[in-house]
């Protein structure tokens, strides 16, 4: 979803940002002094009250979260939008969990697992005593029926489908064991089991039609919060599941969640979200505009952010396009963007791209040298390929102008700076912002030279999924060397080998100009002073099991 929040369109504002950073450091110091002071006081009075993240969590209270858009469909097995998945993560659990710091896969509903050497067979040993929110038991049969339901959803579960591509059989020798067999190596499947797209619902939920599940009327999971009320365009309310006792091995505590409940209010207006957060009417603003960051930080409110792992915001050329078919053009675009300068127009919490993958992706490797700004190199490439400067500085070849129109729907004002930068190498990028419906339809037609977007996944397999000639084939290209390297990544679970292969693939992709990375997509969340341990899981969606509210609720 549109999480790129940018506003500093004037380089002169840079100094402001620097000043702000300095000011921020000051506040930190004084806050620390305050915290120390209050600890001293606490020591004197003997009360347990304390500030800071290390304080003892309190139970109770409803967390008011302000969303910018309404999650039209609430079923996380069907939809890929962040607003839905942030809710799905609270109501369903997964077989495994992924450590957001290291990328390691850790036990959750599965206590342990065995993977065959060819990465075709995965056996999970399930935890005992797990129950759905309707009281029914979670067993290997639940796992099997959920995966079968995802297969039945067909195109409605695009993400889930891509994770279980080639699934041959699911066996359940006993209630606590489930074995998946694929007809080819599928190393990414282990990480996939940690995603909420493969979260679990009770049999009753699965009996419903896809449409009924979307409405959220009876979405019953095993998670720490249960769906309580869905009022479209107003609020989605969750309440604590009191019997919950099977958190991920990464969780900070046991038993039920700290919060009594969570209310996701839909507040489309950015200034209203900001005002509500500042006046304490909501606890969390999930989409802070960068012009509001200063105000929030000056008031002592926290801004938490984490870049979405996976493919960064990038231009994706289609090799079938009139201009994008020329490798020299694609490569010139990679060289022609000054990513350092983009920092001046994006949020303080957002970084320019340093690879096709975002830094938060486990298999990420810094390729910023490949992405170095080299306008002269770019011009030379275009000169050599026969694109000669023409009217208004825009190049042309055989009467064809080096010009294209990019349609996009994201909140991405940095594209205007990219447009300026590319103009200096003689490339004319026309920007056309449309509705999401129009852009998706245009992209499905596949007639455009370039598309713009990102793809979130906390595993570099997203490269294979996105760029692989046999998968999405975002470039509509013929199979080649890249696909051989990508195929290798499916065969091993060795993180070292996978990282090396994915880095090689990323280099090949950039070398062919199949991706023109721009900036990382980062969700910028503002939290009230009373909110503690608001955290992100590996794919940068919210994990609110450990979140708590302090003080007078």
């Amino acid at each position, binding site marked *: *979803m549109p999480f790129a929040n940018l506003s500093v369109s004037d380089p002169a504002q840079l100094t402001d940002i620097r000043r702000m950073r300095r000011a921020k450091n000051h506040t930190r110091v004084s806050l620390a002094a305050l915290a120390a002071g209050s600890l001293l006081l606490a020591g004197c009075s003997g009360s347990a009250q304390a500030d800071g993240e290390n304080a003892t969590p309190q139970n109770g209270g409803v967390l008011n979260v*302000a969303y910018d858009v309404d999650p*039209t*469909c609430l079923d996380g097995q069907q*939809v*890929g*939008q*962040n607003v*839905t998945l942030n809710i799905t993560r609270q109501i369903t659990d997964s077989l495994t969990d992924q450590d957001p710091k290291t990328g390691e896969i850790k036990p959750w509903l599965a206590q342990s697992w065995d993977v065959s050497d060819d990465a075709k067979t995965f056996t999970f040993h399930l935890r005992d005593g797990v129950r759905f929110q309707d009281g029914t038991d979670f067993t290997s049969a639940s796992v099997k029926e959920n995966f079968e339901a995802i297969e039945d959803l*067909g*195109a*409605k579960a*695009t*993400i889930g*489908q*891509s994770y279980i591509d080639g699934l041959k059989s699911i066996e359940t020798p006993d209630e606590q064991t489930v074995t998946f067999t694929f007809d080819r190596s599928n190393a990414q499947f282990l990480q996939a089991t940690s995603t909420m797209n493969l979260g679990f619902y009770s049999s009753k939920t699965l009996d419903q*039609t*896809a*449409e*009924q*599940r*979307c*409405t959220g009327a009876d979405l019953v999971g095993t998670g720490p919060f249960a769906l309580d009320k869905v*009022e*479209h*365009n*107003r*609020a989605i309310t969750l309440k604590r599941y009191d019997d919950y006792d099977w958190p991920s091995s990464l969780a900070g505590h046991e038993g039920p969640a700290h919060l009594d409940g969570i209310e996701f*209010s*839909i*507040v*489309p*207006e950015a*200034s*209203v979200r900001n*005002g*509500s957060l*500042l*006046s304490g*009417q*909501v606890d969390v603003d999930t989409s802070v505009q960068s012009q509001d960051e200063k105000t929030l930080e000056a008031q002592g409110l926290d801004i938490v952010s984490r870049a979405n792992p996976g493919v960064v915001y990038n231009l994706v050329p289609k090799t079938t396009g009139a201009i994008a078919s020329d490798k020299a053009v694609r490569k010139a675009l990679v060289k022609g963007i000054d990513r350092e300068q983009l920092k001046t127009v994006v949020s303080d919490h957002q970084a320019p791209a340093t690879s096709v993958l975002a830094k938060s992706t486990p298999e990420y490797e810094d390729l910023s040298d490949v992405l170095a700004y080299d306008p002269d190199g770019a011009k030379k490439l275009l000169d050599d390929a026969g694109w000669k400067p023409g009217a208004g500085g825009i190049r042309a070849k055989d009467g064809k102008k080096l010009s294209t129109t990019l349609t996009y*729907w*994201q909140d991405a004002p940095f594209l205007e700076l990219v447009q300026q930068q590319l103009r200096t190498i003689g490339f004319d990028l026309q920007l056309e912002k449309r*509705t*999401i*419906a*129009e852009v*998706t*339809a*245009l*992209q*499905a037609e596949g007639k455009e030279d370039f598309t713009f*977007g*990102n*793809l*979130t996944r906390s595993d570099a397999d997203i490269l294979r999924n*996105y760029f692989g000639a046999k998968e*999405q*084939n*975002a470039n509509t290209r013929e199979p080649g060397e890249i696909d051989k390297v990508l195929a290798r990544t499916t065969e091993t679970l060795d993180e070292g080998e996978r990282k090396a292969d994915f880095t090689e693939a990323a280099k090949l992709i950039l070398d062919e100009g199949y991706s023109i990375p721009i900036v990382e997509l980062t969700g910028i969340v503002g939290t009230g002073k009373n909110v503690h341990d608001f955290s992100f899981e590996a794919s940068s969606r919210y994990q609110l099991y450990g979140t708590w509210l302090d003080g007078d609720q």
Partner: protein
Amino acid sequence: MSLRCLVSRLVQGLLVLWIAFTLSFFLLYWLPGDPVITMLGAGGELQNFDPAEVARLRAEFHLDQPLIVQYLFALGDLLRLDLGTSIQAGTPVTEAIATALPSTLALAASALVIALIVGTAVAVAATLTRRPWLRDILAALPGLGVALPTFWVGLMLLQIFSFRLPLFPAVGTGSPAAIVLPAGTLALPLSAIIAQVLFRSLQNAWIQPFVTTFHASGYTRLRLLLRQALPVALLPTLTMGGVLFGQALAGSVVVENVFSRQGLGRLAQTAVTGQDIPLVQGIVLFAAAVFVLLNLLTDLSYPLLDPRLRAARLKPEKKDGDTLAEAAVREGGSPGTTPSSSTETAGARP
């Protein structure tokens, strides 16, 4: 209104509904985009779609048929009063509208009440005052009220009465206090329209001979205005009922967005941006139906308010509750007792 007249009105109403349905249908299909692709790509991030699955879904929504066939399908469903299912949310369209309706009704009703009070007060005060400067100011207010963007007014009210002074909640439909600011915001343009029309008709009524006559017989200005001129002047305002409703509905799109309220406006907005064709059509039809109904009710209520229309069928006899103006009309008085110069007068109606 005779029975024949009523039937012809109903037929006309149905015709309006059919035209609204047809126009919105073709307009929506003429827009670029594909509802199935939009639904599948709901996440916004690029995904690949299995062409076979897409084809299956298109068939499910009859999207693979020629446009005219799709139209006939939709029309057939409509005749069976089946508005279909929202493509995005999966809920039946009727249910989606029924869920959103109460909140919008509450908003529109409160706004109309506020608008009637404020609008009437401004118009009456402007007519009554003997100070030209005050009259000029009051008469200029409606123009200002219409000119101020609802969006901006809403944000300002929130800034002052919710963020600075914690008097009203900024978000949600929960408490009764939550309706004050949005209703006030929506009432502003409505009251401006009411004040404008009412002021004109009051001025018109004010210069009629009967007013002078009554004035001469010792009525105070205020009593004369409220008892005699206002009922006469209210008629043209009543004819605005449909327009006011349309205004309230259009305004609710903005107001519901600014105040994060659930309702028809928000529903319409998300449906249009998500190209949820069945839902958009449902809302268009609903709005058209209410519009038609309101106009019908207005027509039916004329005889109750305008004695001339009643006089044709009723025996002229003076009742205690009648205003003197009505009596004057029935007793062969001048038709000039109504603001006949205005095009919205009841007299111009069939």
